[in-house]
């Protein structure tokens, strides 16, 4: 029982890392390799906020989400849009955006270093046990899990329930057809990219409650998010969410029952198996 709960909590953590990238890649088709740095920036911002006010880090979201949204919107407008305009094909855009955002990740690390310094930043918040069925779990992890669930459902409901959300999904499925039916693809992509960035930064806020960050840690989160998004199928947010929880459960089962040293191996074996059996990802559709 406790293995399942720990696995679910870890899955929630992974969902926080991956949902933003899913939006950016699924809709805007930008494989944003600077995604992890946005997450670290969110975590650092929260650290600042918490040190200055001692108020609950959750309140930091009020500042961090709009800020990350605007920053990512600007990144899309200035850096990505010219690439979108000149790209002759989907493939070219993906290659260009990978290169551009790879460069961007270095710039972000530099900015983070300059603003926050290079040392480890960490604070203690809700580092108390909470007992479920007699077993202790970190209250901060539970808080992050709840945050992740709210974000997941919020995004899912928004994507399926609103006109803008449906437009975004249309672009994800087929951007040419979406343009034909009158959706402004560039605007929808910019929105998805900015929203993805905001979600990632919010993820950073939740993760900062129990993880220790330094400016160079972003790449670890990018990598994990990349695996999850590809595992889940790039077009579907449900895929990323499902993949997060499958990965969390697998790693916890392996760590608890076999050996914690094998968690990474287990994660990548799972990744390979899914790609072999279903190359388009869990929820992906085969492209004709």
């Amino acid at each position, binding site marked *: 029982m406790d293995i399942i709960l720990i696995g679910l909590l870890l899955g929630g953590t992974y969902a926080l890392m991956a949902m933003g990238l899913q939006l950016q890649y699924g809709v805007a088709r930008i494989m944003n390799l600077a995604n992890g740095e946005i997450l670290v920036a969110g975590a650092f911002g929260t650290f600042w906020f918490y040190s200055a006010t001692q108020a609950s880090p959750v309140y930091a979201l009020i500042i961090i989400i709009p800020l990350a949204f605007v920053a990512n919107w600007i990144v899309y407008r200035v850096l990505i849009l010219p690439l979108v305009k000149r790209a002759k094909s989907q493939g070219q855009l993906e290659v260009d955006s990978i290169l551009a955002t790879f460069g961007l990740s270095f710039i972000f690390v530099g900015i983070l270093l300059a603003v926050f310094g*290079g040392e480890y*930043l960490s604070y203690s918040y809700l580092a108390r046990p909470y007992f479920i069925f007699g077993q202790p*779990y970190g209250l901060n992890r539970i808080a992050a899990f709840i945050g992740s669930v709210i974000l997941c459902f919020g995004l899912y409901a928004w994507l399926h329930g609103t006109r803008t959300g449906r437009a975004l999904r249309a672009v994800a499925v087929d951007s040419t057809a979406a343009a034909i039916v009158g959706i402004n693809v560039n605007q929808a992509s910019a929105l998805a990219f900015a929203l993805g960035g905001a979600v990632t930064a919010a993820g950073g806020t939740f993760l900062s409650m129990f993880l220790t960050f*330094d*400016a*160079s840690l972003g790449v670890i989160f990018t990598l994990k998010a990349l695996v999850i998004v590809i595992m889940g199928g790039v077009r579907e947010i449900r895929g990323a969410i499902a993949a997060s929880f499958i990965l969390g459960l697998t790693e916890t089962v392996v760590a608890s029952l076999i050996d914690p040293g094998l*968690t990474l191996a287990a994660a990548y074996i799972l990744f390979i198996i899914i790609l072999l059996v279903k190359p388009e990802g869990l929820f992906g559709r085969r492209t004709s």
Partner: protein
Amino acid sequence: MQLKTVLKFALASVVAGLLGLGSARAQDTIKIGVVGPKTGPLAGGAAVTHFPNFDLWASDVNKRGGLKLKTGQKKVELIVYDDKTNPGETIKAVERLATQDKADFIFAPYGTGFNLAAAPTFAKHGYPQFAVAAVTDQIDELIKKYPTIYFWIGDTTSYARSVAEILKKLVDEKKIGNKVAMVNVADAFGIELANAARPVFTKAGFELVYDKSYPLGTQDLAPVVKAAKAANPDSFVAWSYPPDSFGLAEQAKIEGLSVKAYYSAVATAFPAFGAKFGKSAEGILGAGGIQNTPAIQDYRKRHKEVTGVDADYWGSAIYYAALQVLEQAIEGVGSTDRKAVNDYIKSRTFQTIAGTIDQRKQSNPWFWTVGQWKDGAFHGVKGVNTKDADVSLKAGW
């Protein structure tokens, strides 16, 4: 388009500035090369222990007018390169400092592997290599091979042995039982220490009730701590790296891991560790330590004032002490003749903020191996050729 122009202009002015600096100051400063990770996995540690000390030292030396040479006083100038936590970059940077920048002295890089990788380059150009951030069991072979390398904080086995000795003493005093749970990060450092510790523990009569590794960068250590707790140990030992030292302690606190002795390796001596865990940190044992003498306390205060960063309780002061050795050696010789400076270092002992440093055998004979959080500071409790202090038991979280 506009952005491009701005960038080009900025780049051009930076290059022009560098060239200008180089030519204008070439004759009237002593150039000290600094290499270390500003980015990458080791950057977090280097930002506390490695980089700030150079700024503090340069500021101290320049404030008093510079280093006294036979030809008059000269200020020191730092040339800093980021090695991106990549040994290849470290070697390139050292090579560049030696040949392009013509640095008078180059300080050793950060991390054991990085020092080993750069050692041939230092030796080739005859630069003294103060490998402060290096812990290895190969000290004897290395100093035989490289006459200009100097070690400061000891060998791997001493760190493992000290932990075992502390626990053994507590067992002998009947304060704890002999069941040990041991975990390590699956990285060169963690594996080396765990391998060194295993026979020491078994020989001392300990029972290893849990002995597992976990991958570097593990985000959830709950399964590890849960399993360790289930094994019902009397003491917990983790050969851990910075992010996981934090993660393990937090998880242990949540799980209520009620061991009487709790040890985690790197980063336990970081001020951020004490700041994060506050009262819960009391009694936690960790790698390193320092004797909190008035000289050290004064150093810590100035470190914070000048660099804005808190010094750690392990390598920081030794870094500064090493820079003091370099300073005294250059002034003793009266020039930047590297061979003479090397001979000078090997011919006498030096008084520093950390105490007497003796590099006559290229390895300082004393160093702290284990420290403990007590009253909000981390004190050395055990070491090699140090005055050991009493270890207190961990009384809950």
